[in-house]
């Protein structure tokens, strides 16, 4: 009976504790349960650790259980912890009741929920002087819900934000089976450089198997802004990552991520880094002023980037490395130094469609299709203001329905480029329209229009070049051939020199119309041009020591009759005739008689 009474009293006391959520007295030995010690060991032996469990909260200092709280529910708010854990664990800032400072790492055990809401509008996570004294919030198969709150780090001395290289800089991460949500939150100054045994920690990480969302939230000044590493079905909506030491946003190995209005700016490396996930479609990514590329995708398959925007990212706009069957659609890129769109790496098959790419004093091409790629297609859109509008050193490239203007060289084909086709491309301005080097093969131009090029419309040393249809014009030379070529139904003109064939070059032309201001065709010694059903009009139609063979109805004529020039000659002739008439009528007029000091008497 006595035992029953004692058991009943203990049960009543425990029920009262659980109901009221008050702390239980610490065990005399201050040694935690084995699972707490294991958690402490597993998480790198932090100086202070709060372990949230479904029915209790353990507070461990140096691995020893200091006390245990019983919130009575698996869902705990940070404000509750601040009220019950004690000032040395979580404290309120004096004079700012909604600001709390966290001095402890917080581990969310499975099936627990930590809520950080507007009762704690600002949460200062203390950085430690070393990794163990730093703070973090982490968990797995648990939930972290952050709403209308600013999470930020504070230096170990409490003076200000933790520096980026602080070893105990705070971070937030959620592991397998967990859920992490940010709503209208700001997360700043989080994430740390990894030590030898620990990987770098991003500011916020959805780790493998976790899920959640970020909505209307900003991640600024983190080590890596936010990272989705193997996460599942995470939603990112109206999210900005800026000022990170490393990448702004990393999406790697994540599945089912839904993205809208995601932007990254002023980050230390890539704005948005993509990798490890196939068949991903991302719409409306915006980047600017990142030190690396705006968007960088590596080893992707089936990636679709719709309407991405990049402004002045130092490492270029969009960088696709070894991406198979990837599509960039309606990209808008302004670049001042690197390529607006770069495609490189083996087995790349990329399509760039309807994109507007603008260069400012750029030395890199607007679109660089690098060596080793399997195939690439550029269709629609415009490229302007670059050193080279499109640079091609890879093979299997097709450029179609694209407009290029104001680039120093419109399209430069070099390296070992093979099987390159340009179709319905318009090139305006710059110095050279299309440039093909001697190491390239199987270049074909159809309906290409080059206008207002200051120097050369087409300069080719590519053997076997074929040009069909279109117009080629250049300030000095419209078509400059350094290797064999065939031209068909091409209008060549608006230049001082129509066509030039270098020494020993053989070329053919069918239905070619050459109109030049000075020389129509200049064939250097040993070269030969076979023209069939063509027309050459210029003051000097044929020039040079080479051969120009005419076949069919080929005409070699002067340019359209210069009526104004003719009128000018007539006017000059009339002036001479009238002067002659005047002279004849006044012949024999004597010199005037005048004093000797007057000289001008003729």
């Amino acid at each position: 009976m006595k035992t029953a009474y004692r058991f009943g009293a203990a049960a009543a006391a425990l029920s009262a504790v659980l109901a009221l959520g008050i702390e239980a007295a610490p065990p005399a030995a201050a040694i935690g349960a084995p699972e707490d010690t294991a958690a402490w060991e597993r998480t790198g032996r932090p100086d202070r650790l709060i372990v949230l469990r479904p029915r209790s909260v353990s507070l461990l200092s140096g691995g020893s259980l200091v006390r245990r709280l019983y919130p009575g529910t698996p869902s705990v708010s940070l404000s509750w912890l601040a009220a019950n854990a004690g000032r040395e664990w979580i404290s309120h800032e004096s004079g700012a009741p909604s600001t709390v400072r966290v001095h402890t790492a917080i581990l969310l055990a499975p099936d627990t929920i930590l809520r950080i809401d507007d009762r704690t509008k600002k949460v200062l996570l203390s950085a430690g002087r070393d990794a163990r004294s730093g703070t973090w919030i982490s968990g797995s198969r648990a939930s972290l819900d952050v709403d209308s709150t600013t999470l930020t780090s504070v230096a170990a001395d409490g003076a200000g934000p933790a520096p980026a290289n602080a070893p105990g800089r705070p971070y937030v991460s959620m592991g397998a089976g967990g859920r992490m949500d940010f709503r209208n939150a700001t997360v700043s100054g989080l994430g740390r450089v990894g030590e030898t045994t620990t990987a770098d920690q991003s500011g916020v990480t959805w780790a493998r198997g976790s899920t959640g969302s970020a909505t209307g939230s900003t991640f600024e000044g983190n080590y890596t802004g936010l990272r989705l590493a193997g996460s599942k079905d995470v939603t990112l909506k109206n999210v900005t990552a800026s000022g990170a030491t490393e990448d702004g946003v990393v999406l790697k190995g994540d599945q089912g991520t839904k993205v809208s209005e995601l932007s990254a700016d002023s980050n230390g490396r890539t704005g948005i880094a993509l990798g490890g996930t196939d068949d991903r479609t991302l719409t409306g990514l915006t980047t600017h002023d990142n030190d690396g590329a705006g968007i960088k995708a590596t080893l992707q398959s089936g990636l679709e980037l719709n309407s991405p925007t990049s402004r002045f990212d130092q490492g270029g706009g969009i960088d696709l490395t070894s991406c198979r069957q990837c599509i960039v659609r309606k990209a808008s890129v302004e670049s001042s130094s690197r390529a607006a769109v770069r495609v490189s790496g083996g087995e790349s098959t990329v399509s760039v469609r309807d994109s507007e790419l603008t260069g400012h004093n750029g030395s890199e091409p607007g679109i660089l299709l690098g060596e080793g790629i399997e195939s690439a297609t550029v269709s629609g859109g415009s490229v302007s203001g670059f050193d080279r509008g499109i640079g091609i050193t890879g093979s299997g490239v097709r450029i179609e329905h694209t407009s290029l203007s104001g680039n120093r060289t419109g399209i430069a084909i070099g390296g070992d480029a093979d099987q390159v086709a340009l179709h319905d491309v318009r090139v305006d301005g710059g110095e050279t329209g299309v440039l093909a080097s001697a190491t390239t093969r199987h270049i074909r131009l159809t309906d290409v229009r080059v206008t207002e090029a200051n120097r050369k419309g087409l300069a080719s040393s590519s053997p076997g070049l074929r040009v069909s249809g279109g117009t080629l014009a250049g300030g000095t030379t419209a078509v400059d051939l350094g290797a064999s070529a065939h031209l068909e139904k091409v209008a060549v003109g608006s230049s001082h020199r129509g066509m030039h064939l270098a020494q020993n070059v053989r070329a053919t032309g069918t239905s070619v119309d050459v109109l030049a201001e000075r020389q129509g065709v200049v064939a250097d010694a040993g070269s030969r041009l076979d023209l069939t059903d063509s027309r050459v009009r210029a003051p000097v139609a044929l020039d040079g020591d080479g051969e120009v063979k005419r076949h069919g109805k080929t005409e070699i004529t002067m340019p359209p009759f210069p009526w104004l020039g003719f009128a000018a000659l007539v006017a000059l002739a009339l002036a001479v005739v009238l002067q002659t008439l005047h002279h004849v009528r006044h012949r024999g007029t004597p010199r005037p008689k005048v004093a000797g000091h007057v000289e001008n008497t003729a």
Partner: protein
Amino acid sequence: MSALLDTTLYDFRYYLVYLPLGILGLVRWGCWLVRRAPAALYRPVRNDFRLPLSIVVPVYQEDPEIFAHAIESWLANDVEEVVLVIDVTDHACQEVAARYPVTVVITDVPGKRDALRRGWEACKTDLVALVDSDTIWAEDVAAEVCKPFADPEVGGVGTRQNVYNPRGFLQRVNDMYLDYRYFDENAAQTAVGRAVSCLSGRTAVYRRELLLEISDEFMHETFMGVPCMSGDDKRLTTLTLARGHRTYMQRSARVWSTFPGTWRIFMKQRLRWSRNTWRSDLRALSSRWIRRHPFLAFTMADKAVSSFTLLVAPFFMTYAIIRQDWFFVACLAAWWWISRAMKMLPHLVRRPSSFFLVPGFVLVSFVMAGVKICALLTIRRQRWLTRQVSVVNGVAVRTSPQAAGSEAGA
């Protein structure tokens, strides 16, 4: 059809950029040929007609040596009287005049117009030659200028002028301008309508009775409310024409005059002449009497338009240089040289070495076009610019401190 249109546009673009300049050049050359053709048919009057002739010379701040040469050249002609109207402050010229058998009238009224009036009022002969004090005559000028007066309709006769002993670029350019004027403009105006737009004040001969008749209008000329001081020669010419008389350029009568050798005076002189021309021509073109002289009206309008059209060519040249279209630049430069040389043939036949001055002449003509526009914009301003006289409060006054002091003393 589409291909044909494409080809046509393609061909047209070949010329399109510089087409406006070409068309404008064609029009300008057409206008020049309209003048040049009758000018080639011009002949001076040849007869034995003679009337008594006096010379009236306003004298102010003239170089004494040139003045003496000029007096001697006038006296070498068969003239009744030489009347020198010398400014009271100009003692040097008075001393020169005292050495010759001439009539000296001392005037204390500044301004050329009053001096001319005093001169012709002092004369008694039928014809009066108004002559500048630096103008040297050939020995037969008096005889030659009388010949056109055989026609009673002729009220005034001008002479052919050249630069006295030209030295340096500017004087050579002035000589080119004068030949262009007397072999083209004045010759054409004489040949077509016997209506020369301006009998130059260096030597212009009028019937004395006509001068007395127009004296008041001459003395009280105003333009837009401002009394006119310079432009006396244009005014006398237009008053003569307005009264139904003819004006004639007798090219066989030759005179020489000094011209400035410095850019500063050259520009001032041109600015003054341009203002006078704008005033006179604008007034003439708005007068009824000009309808009797359509060719004269044409040449006046042509001259006015040319001030603006002349600047189109350097505009295109600048555009071509910016485009680095060196072929066009070379063609246009060559065209300027050749075409201007063709227009200057009468001068080049006389002085072939001037061919090498033609590029400079072309550049000066562009500057002069700018000066003409500047003159139009300041058309109301009355200043002699090369002598110390000006119009202040509607009255001609001396502007040099020395002259003003002498005047006060007088």
